[in-house]
């Protein structure tokens, strides 16, 4: 059995080692050098304007942090509300209707939203990378 496997491997090695070589076309090197010269002649890429973008990035970061803090506070508040009735009387108008069902309902909706986000991100990345 081992001899048979060895023989098969030798055969595969022999076949795949003997691949035909191709020669680059006559103008290949010239074409590469043209591309290199074009590349060398092109102006250097414009660097990202970090100084200009910094205030916007800081503002975006602060807004995100604020949204997180508010989110955590709302979740903590929801956690404290022990019954659906209490919850619906304490936050009747400010919260969207989905939260009126109580903590479990809110958690389910949140989980679904996260799932939909994850799927859409994955799908768009897959499509963008051309593997769809």
């Amino acid at each position: 059995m081992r001899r048979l496997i060895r023989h098969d491997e030798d055969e595969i090695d022999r076949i795949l080692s003997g691949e035909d070589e191709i020669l680059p076309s006559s103008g290949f090197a010239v074409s590469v050098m043209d591309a290199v010269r074009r590349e060398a002649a092109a102006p250097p890429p414009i660097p990202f304007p970090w100084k200009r973008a910094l205030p916007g990035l800081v503002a975006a970061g602060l807004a995100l942090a604020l949204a997180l803090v508010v989110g955590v506070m709302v979740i903590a508040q929801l956690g404290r509300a022990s019954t659906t009735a209490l919850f619906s009387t304490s936050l009747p108008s400010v919260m969207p209707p989905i939260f009126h069902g109580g903590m479990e309902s809110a958690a389910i909706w949140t989980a679904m939203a996260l799932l939909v986000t994850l799927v859409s991100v994955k799908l768009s990345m897959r499509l963008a990378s051309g593997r769809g």
Partner: protein
Amino acid sequence: MSATDDQADVERVLAGDIPAFEGIVRRWQGPLVNLAYRFCRDRGRAEEMAQEAFLRAYRGLGGWRKDAVFSTWLFALATNLYRSELRRIPARTVSLDDIAEPADTRATDGGLEDQDRDLAVRRAVWALPAKYRETLILFYFHDLDVTTAARSLGLPEGTVKARLFRGREILRGKLTQRLAVPRLKEA
């Protein structure tokens, strides 16, 4: 192909002598085009991919640390590019299931022609999952040198050996009858 020639040309290019890059292109165009061809099996596309590899090499020349031979760096760069290009736009391949076994080897009067068998093996390699196919391509391209193949792929040697083993195992499983033909003839 001399490593010192490569180093001298790189230094000249980095010093601003752009035409010196032609020496590198002329020395390595054959290997780079052939490696690309093994990945995509399309001559025109192979040259396009090789040209892009040279352009990237030109852009990244300053990043070549001289602790590795220039060719090792160049092959790693080209392999990386070819793999991602093929992931982006795959070459036309056939499914492993489409590599049909002959229904009855006796029906072909003792076996298939060598040429058919070689073609079947190459098609079977082509139909392998990418990680095995790429490993086998690099291994045979570098004349059965696991170390160089591993460097080109940027993988540990152990991983390359494991993939080679598994890739060949799949090939053997798929091509048992075809590979067995010469044994029957020899017996």
